[in-house]
């Protein structure tokens, strides 16, 4: 049996999305900037995609810029917002548990002398409080960047509250909503969001395409310089098939959001409970209730994450330990450490992320196998107490 439980890393492109993309490759393949029928057809696809994406997050079509993915959107938002507000100041606030696309970009900007950076701590569930943002704001603060939902532990932040705090002080608020978009309701107006990064492949769309929501009135310079595409906000011939894929996937994710949250949430809860019931010495990471409906993240004591992943992989189960990037390096996850977990417990984290295509049989298979795998590794571990 092959079981894919790494949907926070990337998702399967759903068939309807592939079907919608194909004409953009083979029939409407014109360059939208050209002056002929082929170009107009491609441009229409872009317009329609922009409308669809905007509608899902309660934005206006002009407020959506298509990009090459979530990381590019984050980079553009952060560098752009800082560059556009040089006169006001250079203080930026973020949190310790951001995705590296935000954290590393801001740290690089700090080294370049472009910003003064405040990195807010989080609580034991990885929540950034609106109060901590309010307390960190200064007269020269130009930007706050707090993720909508955490990619590792699934915790959802109080985005509307943080947005309000920022808007009241006229400070730009960017949120990396890569993990949240298409999974939980987002209203950029109600939540006072100024900038928001979206990535298609996290909601059954294609890889290499994303979007940045830029609230009307917020002016940020282009990150990619060249032609005048995307109203001069992002140079480069538009990835029309990818953009059609993004929009189709987001529209479908939005239409099925409520039923999926119930369906996926029920399987997630079964997995959460099953692990807690059958494996001793585990600790749930992330908020117990206020978390993405598809995220399970446990620290499994006395063993190390990579060996769990290898054992699962041998048995056909795809999972991750921390984020995929984290398991490629030797340091334990910066998210778990920021939540206060000791190093040795952070090393033993296991993330299982479901999708609407996950079945109950698959969850049963994992629940059947996981306790054996954990026991086998624990029997090999010098840290595992013998009396247990």
């Amino acid at each position, binding site marked *: 049996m092959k079981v894919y439980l790494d949907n926070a890393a990337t998702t399967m492109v759903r068939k309807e999305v592939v079907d919608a993309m194909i004409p953009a490759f083979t029939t409407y393949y014109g360059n939208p900037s050209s002056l002929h029928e082929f170009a107009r057809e491609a441009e229409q696809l872009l317009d329609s995609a922009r409308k669809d994406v905007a509608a899902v997050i309660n934005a206006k079509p002009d407020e959506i810029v298509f990009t090459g993915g979530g990381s590019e959107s984050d980079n553009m938002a952060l560098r752009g917002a800082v560059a556009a507000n040089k006169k006001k100041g250079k203080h930026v606030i973020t949190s310790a548990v951001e995705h590296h696309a935000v954290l590393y970009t801001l740290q690089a900007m700090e080294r370049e002398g472009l910003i003064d950076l405040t990195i807010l701590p989080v609580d034991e569930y990885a929540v950034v409080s609106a109060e901590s943002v309010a307390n960190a704001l200064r007269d020269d603060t130009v930007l706050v960047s707090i993720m909508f939902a955490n990619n590792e532990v699934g915790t959802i932040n109080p985005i509307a509250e943080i947005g309000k705090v920022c808007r009241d002080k006229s400070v730009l608020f960017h949120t990396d909503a890569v993990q949240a978009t298409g999974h939980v309701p987002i209203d950029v107006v109600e939540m006072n969001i100024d900038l928001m990064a979206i990535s298609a492949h996290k909601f059954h769309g294609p890889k290499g395409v994303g979007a940045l929501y830029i609230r009307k009135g917020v002016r940020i310079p282009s990150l990619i310089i060249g032609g005048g595409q995307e109203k001069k906000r992002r140079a480069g011939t538009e990835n029309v098939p990818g953009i059609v894929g993004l929009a189709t996937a987001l529209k479908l994710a939005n239409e099925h959001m409520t039923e999926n949250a119930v369906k996926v949430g029920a399987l997630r809860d079964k997995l959460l409970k099953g692990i807690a019931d059958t494996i001793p010495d585990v600790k749930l990471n992330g908020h117990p209730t206020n978390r993405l409906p598809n995220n399970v993240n446990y620290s499994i004591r*006395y063993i*190390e994450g*990579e060996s769990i992943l290898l054992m699962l992989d*041998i048995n056909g189960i795809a999972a991750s330990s921390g984020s995929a990037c984290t398991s490629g390096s*030797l340091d334990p996850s910066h998210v778990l450490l920021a939540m206060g977990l000791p190093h*040795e417990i952070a*090393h033993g984290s296991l993330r299982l992320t479901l999708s609407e295509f996950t079945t109950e049989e698959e969850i049963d298979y994992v629940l059947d196998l996981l306790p054996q795998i954990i026991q086998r590794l624990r*029997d090999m571990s*010098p*840290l595992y107490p013998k009396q247990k």
Partner: protein
Amino acid sequence: MYTEKVMDHFKNPRNVGEIESASGVGTVGNAKCGDIMQIFLDIDENEIIRDVKFKTFGCGAAVATSSMATEMIKGKSVDEALKITNAAVVEALEGLPPAKIHCSVLAEEAVKAAIEDYMKKRDEAK
């Protein structure tokens, strides 16, 4: 990312366990870094490693290098075992990713620590 040999030793680790009243025990690494290796030796009066067992907390490479190191020193004399380098363990495993070479270093150190422990006990007994 791992060779077949590494995966074989990870899936079917040789010599897992502990030896009660071992002639020497070596523990290296720490949980903070994500690797701990423990090697137990049973050494006879001719200084031949009669039996060896290991316990490891760590990644796939940590398990595979410990397993391979125990295989390489079993039946060898203490002097021969001391000559086993991390490079020899890597070679026997048909390679390790660069980021995992430190696991092989740990395996060499664990063997050495266990032998040192044995020598200390031996000298104290004299």
